[in-house]
């Protein structure tokens, strides 16, 4: 009896490992394929090989050195938007979350409901309107227009998230500080912000990565190649003649996917805990 249950357990474990192995292959294959494409010479996809007989770094070189390449410019644009978006959204959302978490004021309850509802509506549901609006105020094809949309659009979700976290910080702390004569802003600055660092880091990270990953809004807002973000620029590598530039696209993608994936894997534990605490503690 004991033997058979032990044996059964072994078979089970074997199956678990087998399943995980299959998953590894399914996950790894596309990524590995893209990596291999990026070191294939030439641009004709029909003659590419999974293991090229003469691997080359020509596509990587092209991205950085060719006068026709805007790659560095796109990198700079994305980075610029990402930094502004990251810093700006931390400031705006922490202010809002502080008010919603610690003060009673008219419209507080409905404001919270509005955030919950609006976070379901992605910014692109208003894309018809956004496009026409930006057109009328002359902010199309401008990085500032894009930043403005990102900054405004992230508020409902992140304010909710940060407010949930602030709620878990004991009220006694800031009440004690108030008795000691700390003003509203000082309280916010010296007590709430330091204690909320983990969730603020999550917000900063999310909003730093969003411009690197987003494709639709830049596509609507930006038109001239010198203003493109990475996602948009890379898409245009393969947009016109798909097969001719895929190798170049693969090289450009790997250079952006690797740093983002690394940051992500390092910080994913905090992301998860931030998400679950914010969503359930609401």
């Amino acid at each position, binding site marked *: 009896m004991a033997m058979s249950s032990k044996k059964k357990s072994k078979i089970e474990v074997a199956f*678990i490992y087998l399943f995980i192995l299959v998953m590894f292959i399914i996950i790894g294959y596309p*990524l590995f394929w893209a990596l291999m494409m990026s070191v294939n010479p030439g641009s004709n996809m029909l003659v590419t090989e*999974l293991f090229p007989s003469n691997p080359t770094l020509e596509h990587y070189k092209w991205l950085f050195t060719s006068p026709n390449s805007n790659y560095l410019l796109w990198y700079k644009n994305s980075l610029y938007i990402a930094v502004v978006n990251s810093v700006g959204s931390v400031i705006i959302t922490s202010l809002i979350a502080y008010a919603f978490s610690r003060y009673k004021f008219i419209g507080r309850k409905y404001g919270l409901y509005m955030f919950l509802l609006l976070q379901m509506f*992605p910014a692109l549901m208003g894309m018809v309107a956004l496009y026409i609006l930006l057109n009328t105020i002359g902010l199309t094809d401008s990085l500032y227009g894009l930043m403005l949309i990102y900054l*405004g659009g992230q508020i*409902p979700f992140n304010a909710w998230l940060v407010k949930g976290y602030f709620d878990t910080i004991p009220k006694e702390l800031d009440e004690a500080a108030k008795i000691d004569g700390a003003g509203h802003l000082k309280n916010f600055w010296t007590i709430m912000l330091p204690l909320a660092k983990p969730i603020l880091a999550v917000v900063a990270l999310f909003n730093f990565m969003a411009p690197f990953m987003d494709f639709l809004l830049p596509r609507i807002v930006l038109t001239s190649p010198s203003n493109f973000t990475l996602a948009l620029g*890379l898409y245009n590598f393969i947009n016109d003649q*798909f097969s001719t530039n895929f190798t170049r696209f693969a090289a450009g993608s790997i250079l952006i996917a690797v740093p*983002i994936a690394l940051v992500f894997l390092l910080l*994913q534990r905090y992301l998860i805990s931030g998400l679950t605490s914010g969503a359930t503690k609401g």
Partner: protein
Amino acid sequence: MANNQSKKTSRNIATLLSIVIPGLGQVYNRRFLKGILLLIVTISFLVTTWDYIDIGIWGLFTLGTIPREHHSIQLLIQGLIALIVLLFGIGIYVYNIMDARKDAISRENGNPNPTLLKGISSFYNNGFPYFMILPGLLMLLFVVVLPLLFMVGLAFTDYNQYNSPPRNLLNWVGFDNFAALASVNMWKDTFLSVFTWTIVWTVVATTLQIVLGLFLALLVNDKRVKFKRTIRTVLILPWAVPAFVSILIFSALFNPTFGAINRDLLSQFEIMIPWLSDPFWAKVALIMIQTWLGFPFVFALFTGVLQSVPQDMYEAADVDGGTRMQKFRHITWPHLLFATAPLLIMQYAGNFNNFNIIYLFNEGDPAVRGQNAGGTDILISWVYKLTFVTNNYNMAAAITIIMGLIISVFAFFQFRKTASFKEEGRY
């Protein structure tokens, strides 16, 4: 008694005076500085915004009367902004009335007027949350709320490629656009097929990613499995790689002529599948790709929660001779669902609006005869096409409103779930 009567009148006089001229009630209360400030605010508000609001509201109703001279779209936008500004104005006005009444009541009760410094500090204290919210609120109004309102407006106009300002004036057409969706054949057919595919897509793709994520989380959480950290890191990889990169890679992998799936894998079995040109296979490919993209988030989420399930519950179940299935159904699953339900609902809502994958994989194609949407278009990518390709702004807006209604159903469940968390008070 008479004294009491005069007390009551004083608060009514203050209220009435503030209704007639903002600030006057405050002056009556002998709060001169506040009264004068309110008066100045009121006058400057009226002087600066009167024309704008006047034209805006007129434009909102008429959408202009002279073609080429009046731009209906600009009038519509001005009208909506005028409404928002007007609401702010009314807010200040109502505050002024309530403030006058409050001060009068406080005077009736014999409280002395606060000193200037005290007044300012109480204004700062009471107003503080509003100051904190104001910058974000303004951005939210103009970036999120205004576009949504504008879009709702568009859905009731006749704005399309052939009827567009400044050459033509727009008109309010009531529910004509919605009626067209239900009665004009081309719209009706397209809407029905896109709508049903959107629902199937949302349900199947999201459920698959949740099931796979759950299954893997349970497997890896098994005590007998080693190298947990490494396994978890690899399993999360698809989430870490930017989605647009993976989708474009898949789009190339599935390409029937040079893609590796047909060329390297299926050719071993002498099968060629038209992944991009046949709607059915394109849909199958999309669902598989979304499962690949989406399961790591659920996996990571469940893994985090699984570690917080109290072990003694399982031990108690073991003593009672509970089977593995029973333990899962009565301990693990309720616990997981309790902690993650709102996020899971968000997953469904997210896929409902998952424009990126549909557009980047195949731009919603292949084309379908007799429809103005592609075979894999979901509602949001159809709206994109209607807006930016065929400029059917009015229909795009009408469809967006229908999408908004469906999203509100998700939001409703979200509210209920979140509310239940509050009552439970467990997390």
